[in-house]
């Protein structure tokens, strides 16, 4: 719902979020270096900082990867999602600090270009155990850069949400590269096996959480489309549910025309919109009606139920669907109306 672009659209909630994040990162880095100095008094500051930044970035990546599935499991985690992009940008800068210090420490003083040296100082590309782990870190950093650099809403609008989301799926590529970067690095340096165990535990957590959330979601989708839903009832309409099954200011979500449709009930009326928010394709059907507008649960974009349009001066628009009520049952025409030709609404009593 941008009217004007700013560097960061800070509000109270985002400021609190960012302050908490900055404090947590600062405490972590200080604790890491402090404990490191206490345990190994002869470790150099560079080495400790390299490790502090690297592990901070990697730990933060686990948090970032957990937010998506956690939000699908429970709306309690939505406040974390609200500003997730700032976590991503912070992680990129932590990774960049780790990478820059590593390059200074290990590659700056040779006779080849330091960036070239990252790829060539260890050339055992055919060897599994001795595989060069630093290029993997660099590749991950490039992916993280692309995502951080395109995190502004300008990019969402100009790449469109589906393309933007596909690009940001690169976070899983980066994660895979980093798991190998850390595991191989620890193996080759013959560091404590604790490193490999921790990486394994992190991997199990991320994979387990994603599989669990996907399973739950699939089960809910199957249950959500009730036995009668989808049955043709004439004029191209399909049966959805009883009117009373939709609580006020909330939606019933069904799949139609290859995507989710949100059928909202608000103040005695019903209206249906495509459940895909135009901002980041958030689940519009999981929001609620606030001040007469369907409000997306992710970042609060709003749409007028009857028209699918954001209230002026905003310009977002989503397709709408005709709905009607017959004998106390909600019926949906699964043929979407384009933005600008709204499908309107109907009374819960059955009158138009």
């Amino acid at each position, binding site marked *: 719902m941008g009217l004007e672009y700013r560097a*960061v659209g800070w509000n109270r909630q985002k400021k609190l979020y960012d302050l908490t994040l900055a404090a947590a990162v600062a405490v972590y880095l200080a604790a890491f270096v402090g404990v490191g100095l206490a345990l190994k008094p002869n470790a150099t500051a560079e080495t400790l900082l390299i490790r502090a930044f690297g592990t901070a970035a990697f730990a933060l990546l686990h948090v970032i990867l957990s937010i998506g599935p956690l939000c699908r499991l429970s709306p309690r985690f939505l406040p974390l999602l609200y500003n997730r992009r700032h976590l991503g940008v912070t992680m990129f800068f932590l990774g960049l600090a780790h990478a820059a210090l590593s390059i200074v420490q290990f590659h700056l003083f040779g006779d080849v270009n330091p960036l070239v040296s990252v790829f060539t100082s260890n050339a055992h590309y055919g060897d599994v155990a001795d595989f060069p782990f630093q290029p993997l870190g660099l590749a991950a950093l490039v992916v993280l850069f692309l995502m951080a650099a395109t995190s502004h809403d*300008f990019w969402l609008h100009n790449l469109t949400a589906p393309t933007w989301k596909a690009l940001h799926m690169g976070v899983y590529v980066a994660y895979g590269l980093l798991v190998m970067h850390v595991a191989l690095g620890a193996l080759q340096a013959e560091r404590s096996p604790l490193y490999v165990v921790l990486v394994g535990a992190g991997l199990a957590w991320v994979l387990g959480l994603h599989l669990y959330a996907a399973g739950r979601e699939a089960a809910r989708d199957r249950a959500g489309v009730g036995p009668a839903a989808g049955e043709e009832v004439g004029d191209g309409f399909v049966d959805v549910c009883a009117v009373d099954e939709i609580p006020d200011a909330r939606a019933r979500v069904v799949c139609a*025309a290859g995507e989710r449709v949100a059928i909202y009930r608000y103040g005695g009326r019903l209206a249906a919109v495509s459940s895909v928010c135009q901002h980041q394709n958030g689940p519009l059907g999981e929001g609620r009606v606030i001040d007469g507008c369907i409000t997306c649960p992710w970042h609060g974009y709003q749409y007028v139920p009857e028209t699918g349009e954001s209230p002026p001066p905003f310009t977002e628009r989503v397709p709408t669907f005709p709905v009607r009520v017959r004998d106390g049952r909600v019926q949906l025409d699964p043929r979407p109306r384009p933005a600008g030709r709204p499908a309107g609404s109907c009374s819960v009593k059955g009158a138009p």
Partner: protein
Amino acid sequence: MLVTLVSWLVGLAAAYLAVGLVFAVAFVTRGAGRVDPVAAHGTWGFRLAILPGCAALWPLLARRWARGERAPVERTPHRDAAGPAEGAP
């Protein structure tokens, strides 16, 4: 051999980004507002924030700017099935 190959690739990437950086400075000051009218009133902080991305994705933006195109509307199954929007900008 490996050093030569990697030097080439690193040089290529550096050249791509150097062109991108020059382009990005021009784009954030002039082009952004043409491609996306909302950006015409963007703050300087905003212009700085999108600069690295413009340097990285410059071929896409350069093409759009040169052709006088606007940002496209996303495609979803519902939008495809509904057909073109009315009164689209």
